[in-house]
């Protein structure tokens, strides 16, 4: 377990150092902030309510990278992901995949009932 975790950290830091916008200083939260745009549909940190669209927390990094690339090139059919993956650079997609791969699948939190 520990070894896997350490490997993930290595992967993530490699990915992050590969991601940089022109003229912007290195930001240790860059991958998190990019991935946050996916939370809206895939849930906070990739843990999706009801698993629709699917949870992506803790998924294999290479698998996620491949999937995002396949959406981007149109190889993998989709209702919406093929349009969204095209909005990111390859480096950004890799950073996003690295972030979600490093997350632990967790029980979802849902809003409380009104008046509670």
């Amino acid at each position, binding site marked *: 377990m520990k070894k896997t975790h350490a490997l993930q950290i290595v992967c993530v830091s490699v990915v992050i150092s590969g991601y940089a*916008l*022109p*003229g*912007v*200083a*290195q*930001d240790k*939260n*860059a991958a*998190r*902030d*990019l991935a*946050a*745009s*996916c*939370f*809206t*549909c*895939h*849930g*906070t940190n990739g843990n*999706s*309510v*009801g698993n*629709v*669209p699917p949870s992506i927390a803790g998924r294999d990094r290479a698998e996620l990278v491949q999937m995002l690339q396949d959406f981007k090139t149109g190889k993998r059919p989709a*209702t*919406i992901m093929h*349009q*969204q993956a*095209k*909005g*990111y650079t390859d480096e*950004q997609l890799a950073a996003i995949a690295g972030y979600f791969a490093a997350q632990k699948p967790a029980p*979802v*939190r*849902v*809003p*409380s*009932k*009104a*008046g*509670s």
Partner: protein
Amino acid sequence: MTIDRREFLKWISASAGIAALPACETTGAGGAGSARVVVIGGGFGGATAAKYVKLWAPDIDVVLVERSDRFISCPLSNLVLAGNTTMQEITMGYDALRSRGVRIIRDEAEAIDAEKRQVRLARGDVLNYDRLIVSPGIDFLDTIPGLRSPQARERVLHAWKAGEQTVALRKQLEAMPDGGVFVMHVPVAPYRCPPGPYERVCQVADYFKRAKPRSKILVLDANPDVVSKPGLFKAEWNGPYKGMIDYKPNSELEDVDAKGMAIKLTFDSVKGDVLNVIPPHRAADIAQKTGLITANERWCGLDWTTGESVTVKGIHVLGDATLAAPAMPKSASMANQHGKFCAAAVIALIKGQPVTPPVIMNTCYSFVSRTGAMHVTSIHQYDVAQKTLVPVKGAGGVSDKSSELEGTFAWGWARNIWADTLA
């Protein structure tokens, strides 16, 4: 709420004739303890910002000021009009957000003193802040003389803020006799939720088809064409709802006659059994009072790297109240994304860390029936030369056509954005 220790100390020092220390970004509002971020407005923008400042920087004190004890989602509220979902389904509480460690004060922000970095609440309490996030939503412009009286506003509804008006419009539609005419007016863009009016047309048509098949819908649009997903909406109107909907573009509203139940256009007057007029709107009152409105007396200009106001330092503005970057819609999805990038920027600014310009994504679904939906999506990357967020060319787009599969994703979207915002 009682005055907390920080404010008490500050007032003691002030009354003792000692100048209060200016709020320091690293040591917190008023001096001792952690930094404080105050958020005004618990909608999609503000609640998300409050959640993520706390999640990503637990040491920061986060206070959310919200006047309601419940959150009612505008997305999916059109389904309530058709009886395709219930108010209960789109109404949520703030306890899950509270359990994240966000302090929630049920009150209304009455005034902001940007120099002293203080927010005064309607009940008289004063909150100090290091950084303030204002996510106030919209208020309506007073441009329709016939809607100035409360009686007129009760008769001719907007239902453009989900809640009582949603329920009231549903009741009007239920009370309307079969063979009646529902007339809707759409204001000139930009307005909250570009596809919203046209989704509403589909939902009302879905209800009429089922319950009042002889009824008609007249859409008076001040815009030259359907503002969002025109091809897709027209495919519905000429498909499953053929013969039910009359769409009239370039229909500028002059006035409303609530007694005579008529909408007056420049050259015409149109009667209906149920009128639904969405008045033009602007950033809500607190933004206006604070001098945050910078464009056309309606919207708040901001720095799209941090969300900070271009006029008032230390104040960040989110959501529908903002002067949109190019091709950026006023949507729940955008407000939720504003909340996250702003939270990241506010934390970085407080901690003296670098701020990376954001990449944000819009995803909006429109329901065209009880179960069918279609989407529009766009990705916005920061352009250093233009100093704003711009949509990525060749990315984003709309559905090929509405489908039940996308209806399932639309519900998934709703449940996830609610959780990402409120839990």
